């Protein structure tokens, strides 16, 4: 204790290192404890990769590259995951196509158009979207939204039937629970995160640049295109990629509204399946090779989302560093 009181005043903040030998045991113990908690993140990520791969090793070794085929048949023990990967890609793309323009527009509305006292309530409303749990979106999607939009699908489907490209995309068969319904629900769910990240990026555009554009006589739209957009492009791309990662991994809502049919089709109004949904719906009753296959789909999903998140966070971080440097 005495050594502490003497040593203390000599330590400038953040440079205790030279005195580290004289630090009491409890102080060093706390540092080790804190470090261990920080390392826990890395430990969990490594453990996720190792244990799930172990549990699915038999699928990867039995099927080899055939995991990327579309044969999904429990009776013959054939588990190709292609239709689920396809469904994941399609639903995520539909979600992004709808959510990104809306999110960026709201971010611009918040940062460039409305005054500060209005922007806070708007942010609250967007945050409310994120508070609605995934399963509630799913419940609403399957019991209210899908039966309602089914009729719209049916009339669009009969309208475009036979027209070359449109007929292939929007023609029959149509069904309430479908790729498209799932994409719409996912779009609602990723809008908050894409909006808030885009807003953070757009808020870093220097006021002086904007004022310069206005001084040259630009309208607000011209100012946005001339100064805000070039400045925040990279960060918005990062935000969009993070939204993509969320859309790919969103499970319960997708499991309820996607239609649960492992098919590869260009018809967006047809029922389909995606990776998280098939795990959620079938893992509970699965055993043996089937369970290994579903666990393996989980491993693939983990790898895909990790890659997307690393790239996205890298872009966002590099962008933020460049801002600070400027």
């Amino acid at each position: 204790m005495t050594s502490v009181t003497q040593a203390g005043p000599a330590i400038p903040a953040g440079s205790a290192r030279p005195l580290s030998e004289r630090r009491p045991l409890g102080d060093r113990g706390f540092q080790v404890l804190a470090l261990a908690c920080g390392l826990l993140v890395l430990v969990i990520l490594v453990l996720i990769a190792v244990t799930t791969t172990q549990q699915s090793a038999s699928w990867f070794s039995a099927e080899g590259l055939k995991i990327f085929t579309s044969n999904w048949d429990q009776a013959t023990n054939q588990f190709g995951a292609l239709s689920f990967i396809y469904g994941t890609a399609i639903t995520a793309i539909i979600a992004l196509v709808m959510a990104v323009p809306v999110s960026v527009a709201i971010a611009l509305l918040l940062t460039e158009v409305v005054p500060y006292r209005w922007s806070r309530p708007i942010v609250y409303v967007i945050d409310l979207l994120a508070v609605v749990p995934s399963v509630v979106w799913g419940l609403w999607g399957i019991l209210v939204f899908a039966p309602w939009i089914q009729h719209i699908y049916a009339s669009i489907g009969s309208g475009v039937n036979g027209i070359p490209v449109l007929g292939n995309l929007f023609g029959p068969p149509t069904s309430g629970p479908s790729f498209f319904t799932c994409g719409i629900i996912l779009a609602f769910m990723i809008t908050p995160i894409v909006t808030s990240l885009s807003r953070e990026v757009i808020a870093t555009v220097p006021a002086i640049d904007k004022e310069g554009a206005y001084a040259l006589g630009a309208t607000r739209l011209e100012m946005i295109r001339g100064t805000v957009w070039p400045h925040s492009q990279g960060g918005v791309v990062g935000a969009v990629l993070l939204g993509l990662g969320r859309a790919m991994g969103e499970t319960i809502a997708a499991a309820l509204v996607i239609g649960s049919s492992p098919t590869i089709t260009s018809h967006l109004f047809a029922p389909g399946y995606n990776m998280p949904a098939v795990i959620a719906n079938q893992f509970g009753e699965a055993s043996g090779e089937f369970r290994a296959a579903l666990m393996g789909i989980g491993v693939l999903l983990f790898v895909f989302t990790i890659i997307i998140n690393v790239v996205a966070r890298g872009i966002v971080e590099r962008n933020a560093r460049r801002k600070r440097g400027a």
Partner: protein
Amino acid sequence: MAVTSPGQVDLREPPSWRRTKNRIATVLMVIAFVLVIIPLGFVLYTVVSKGVGIISKTFLTSGIPVIVAPPDVGGMGPAIAGTLVITGMATLLAVPLGVLGAVYLNEYGGKSPLARFIGFMADVMTGVPSIIMGLFIFSIWVVHFGLSGYSGLAGSFALGCLMLPIVIRSTQEMLKLVPDSLREGAYALGATKSRVSVTVVLPAAIGGIVSGALLAVARAAGETAPLLFTIGTVTIGGSPNWNVFKGTNTSLPSQIFANASSPYPGAQARGWGAALTLIVIAFILMIAARLVTARFSRYSHY
């Protein structure tokens, strides 16, 4: 700022087409916001209108019914109990570990490569799909204990994995806001670094830490996917299982998921009731977070 109204700055009147385009863009932004309000309002309205009729004291306390078809039997008692104990346990696991992890990142790690790597991976971990956490706990915990592996605790582990990076990041943001002069003052009085962290830095940031933790809890309470393969299935008609360490359990989101795929109006009605209960819990947590932020934050971004 007067500058944000271009009319005052612009000495030449823009040609009418440029102004029209500008107006169209503004209108499109407002439409984008309206596009988001409509489904949100629709969802909340549906949940409230369909859920409010079924919620009663009996609904909140009685067991999951054996026969699901009739609308006015049974309730969500075990699910509410499960949600409370599983989320509570997950909070006990994730919040202390996450806060300590953030203390390392902000107080000890600083700008060192390891600390920056951990911070980066914590961000990446927030993007890992929640169902992966369920599969992870299944393969590291449940398979080794067989049927007795299914318990509230396993679910808490999965939710804790989900909450940990969120707590770390939100806490770290708050610690960053604590001014260095406070730390220096404490050092000048002779405190050790651990003592400064625990008795000066953490209390100074407590408001933000608590509100960040509450938001993480709100998110975890609504999660279904991590619980699907970890807490087992409910003992039908059984009484609430308040023991988080032993026996299978259930939760509100799990029950909503089960009832949403049921064709019976009675089951669906209970699903709406459970959804309303869950949303109310999430809202209470969110409002609590706002109140804590307003009441206890000494340092903020603004």
